[in-house]
């Protein structure tokens, strides 16, 4: 039996960042994208194992690029979100929205 787990917050952040970056999603850009949008400084030490797990779950895939000079001859690992990943993101969003329903702050009172 496979139990569908809901995505954790950090997992959602990573998947969304990879989606946004398209072809240019690898360690550096993912880290910077999250930092730029949320103001949260994310550690590479946390990104790699989480990406591994998303990949294990079949939500994401990755491939190694060509070695480049600015990395001292090391390769980038590019990430791509798989359809299952997109679906999981939608499900997570729907779950959240369902829970928020009726709790949305009144747009008029907030301004």
């Amino acid at each position, binding site marked *: 039996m496979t139990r569908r787990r809901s995505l954790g917050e950090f997992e959602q952040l990573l998947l969304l960042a990879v989606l946004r970056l398209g072809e240019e999603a690898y360690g550096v850009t993912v880290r910077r994208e999250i930092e730029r949008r949320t103001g949260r400084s994310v550690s590479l*030490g946390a990104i790699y194992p989480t990406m591994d797990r998303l990949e294990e779950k079949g939500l994401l895939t990755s491939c190694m690029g060509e070695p480049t000079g600015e990395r001292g001859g090391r390769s980038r690992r590019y990430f791509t979100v798989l359809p299952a990943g997109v679906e999981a993101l939608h499900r997570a969003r729907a779950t959240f929205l369902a829970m928020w329903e009726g709790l949305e702050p009144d747009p008029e009172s907030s301004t």
Partner: protein
Amino acid sequence: MSGGPTRSRGGPSRAPDPWRAPWWLTLLSRLLPARHRQLFVGDLLEESSCFVRPARGAAAARRWLWRHAWRGAVVGLAYRMSGGGMRGASRLPARTRGAAGGGRPGFGSVVQDLRYAVRTLKGSPGFTAIALLSLALGIGANTAIFSIINEVLIRELPLREPGDLVEIYTTEEGGEYSTSSWADYPDVSALTEVFEGVTGYELTFASVDTDEGSQSRMAELVSGNFFSELGVPMAVGRGFTPEEDQVPGRDAVMVLSHRYWRESFGGSTGVIGQTLRLKGRPFTVVGVASERFKGLWPVLTPDFWTPRMMADHFSLFATESSLLDSRGSRSMFMKGRLREGVSVDQAREALAALTERLREIYPEVWDEGETLEALSTLDVRIHPLVDRAVVPVAGLLMAVVGLVLLIACTNLAGFLLARGTDRQRDLAVQMALGARRSRLVRQMLTETLLLSILGGALGVLLAYWVLGVFSRVELPSLITLHLDFGLDSNVLLFAAVVSVGAGLFFGLLPALASTRTDVAPVLKDESGAVAGGRRRAFLRSVLVVTQVAVSLVLLVSAGLFVRSLVNAQSIDPGFHAPEAGMVWLDLSGRYGAEEARVAYRELEERARALPAVKAAALASRLPLGQSVGTTGVTIPGVEPPPGREYHSADITEVSPGYLDLMRIPVLSGRGFDASDVEGSEPVVMVNEAMARRFWPGEDPVGKVIERGSTELRIVGVTRTTKVRTLGEAPRPQILLPLAQEYSPIVAVLARGREPPELVVNRLRGLVREYNPDISLMSGNTMEQHLSLMLLAPKAAAALLAALGSVALLLASIGLYGLVSYTVSRRNREVGIRVSLGADHGDVIRALVGGGVRLVAWGIALGLLLALGATQLVDRFLYGVGATDPLTFIGVPALFAGITLLAAYIPARRASRVDPVEALRAE
């Protein structure tokens, strides 16, 4: 995952690479799983150089890289240790989130445990301080002792492939490994079918001419291949060359030790090519050995090395034949490097065959039973003979400090058990929330480990400080010895293993005990009926009894050593000159026998003429000193011992004033006087022990004994003095007049009304004035001279007393903790008792009662153990039995007093509680 990262690093073909990873980044990346390391380094390099540097500058980019590398590595490590990644975020409070997670422990649980541990430890500063103090004392003592043992026995010499090296000895009759002859060295070197190379070395004294006169230094004569064959690392310059190993006396070159280089040349690299004058001859410095190479012997670091071809320049006796040619003169050591594929046994066979050849050519020096032998260098620490004496002492020392550590850890375990009980309800809540026991145990272990690592760090600092004090102690020896006990990687590794081991081992038991709990009763109940409390109380009691017993063993041993030291100091050595001062001279190389005898007489006369001096004398060696001389004598009418040609007796050459100076009485006949000179009848004095043994019931004065071909007339009998050790049985000894003998090394002694330190200075000045070329070796007071003899018993007594006191302190802390804790648990009971009218005395008795029983058990057990343990130290004791009643009664009494005080203090405090407060508190 789609394959591992491509490993195409920028090779050396790539031109200077601005993107090369700094070494520390590569090192940090090792904290991550292997599959992430290259990515990690690559991403960090790329971001810092392509994004951060253009925006914020190079310096900021470097700081950014440093910060993010550390953060990433630590976070990565935490992920790795928690066995995976994040689960769905839990809504439980941070503290229980990890604990309550169902499967593998969740994100950052290690970091979280650490944070929690820090908070708990900060929360109870008293407990933390006592636990840290206990651990620091225990681990500090272990680290200090271990670093000494490491320096003497364990530290591996920085030699090339020590596994291929063998020690080559010439065995004496009876198989004892001994020194070899320089004359045999070329023959051993020629065994090229088994040895790639053979090196020879011999420690010797050298006098260095300085502006303030000459100074005695320790030097080592070595074969020309010494530095190259052994692979001795050099700091500056070179070792010796094969050419410098060819012609006797031609190449006056030297390699300095690192320490001597720093002390005498300020560590300047300009030293190469400079000269030092040794007994008038300039020696050119060609190199400086690396700081890592302190010579082949522990503690005895030579100040410089010179080629063996210069041996005769250092010889104490000006002899006809060179030291390099005299087959019978055995004074050097050899190491051989085995050829590839050759075993130690094959080397041994080759050496045995060589011995047979040598025996045929030189039957006069190769006695039956003497042979060249080889032992693997890895099997020898210092020298087989020395090892046999030193290794058991080292073992004993480690056992003792191990016991101290055991006590410290027992304290820790006891405190943890107590706290586990206090935390019972806390733990029960967590378990009720679904936390696994293993998870809670891990949390508690994290706390213990943090404690033990901090304690270990403090202990290392403590050890460092103690060793620093120890290294500054000057040993009263003929030349300066350097006790250089540092903290090298071996010692630090040892401290780390001990700390972590202690934390794990002694933390696990209390952690398991505290979490073995039924949740329900604890949550329902009040503090009185804690499940499993009885078992824990029993465990704590066992711990305290063990502590008391073990520290008692240490204190009893310390007591025995102190008693033995007092005894040793009160032994009458047979002479008495506490106000005497002395300087040691080396006349070799500058004075022949004739001139030396003139110098002896003149020096004695001048010393006697010093102001306030009452007696002055010269002697070739002093009783209870480091140098011992033995000679063979023939006694007409008395058969030598079976298998021997001579009777052996200790020998000392003295000037006429010697007996007066040392206050050694002449029992019959006369002492030496000015008439005993060269050309007059050779005379000798014997001591009472010798007279009794060889002429029982007779007066030997007037009889004749033979030494070599010389007939010596006995002119007097002296009282027997101790010669080698204070504990020895009386030994036969003969005294010869210096005026008829020759000794290159002599002490000039004087005593009078002035303090001995002043006498030493006056003697120094006198010798300088007499002839500035005479090499002054050292100046001591008689007290300093004797203190070396008592150094070992004093050190043993001081060390055991210090460790015993630490143990007693630790055991008291433990007992204090236990009673305080019991008292706090029974606060309510005390409150009831007091409110029912019990007086302070009753309450104190009730509370201390438990402690008294534990101490009594501990002392009983400790006495039994001590009876066994002290048998092991029996042979180190002077005039005190291993079951000395005074020690065995006095120490436990003292012990009981101190430990009961430790129990009494918290009990008294408890008896003062306000009953209303105590009852309301629940």
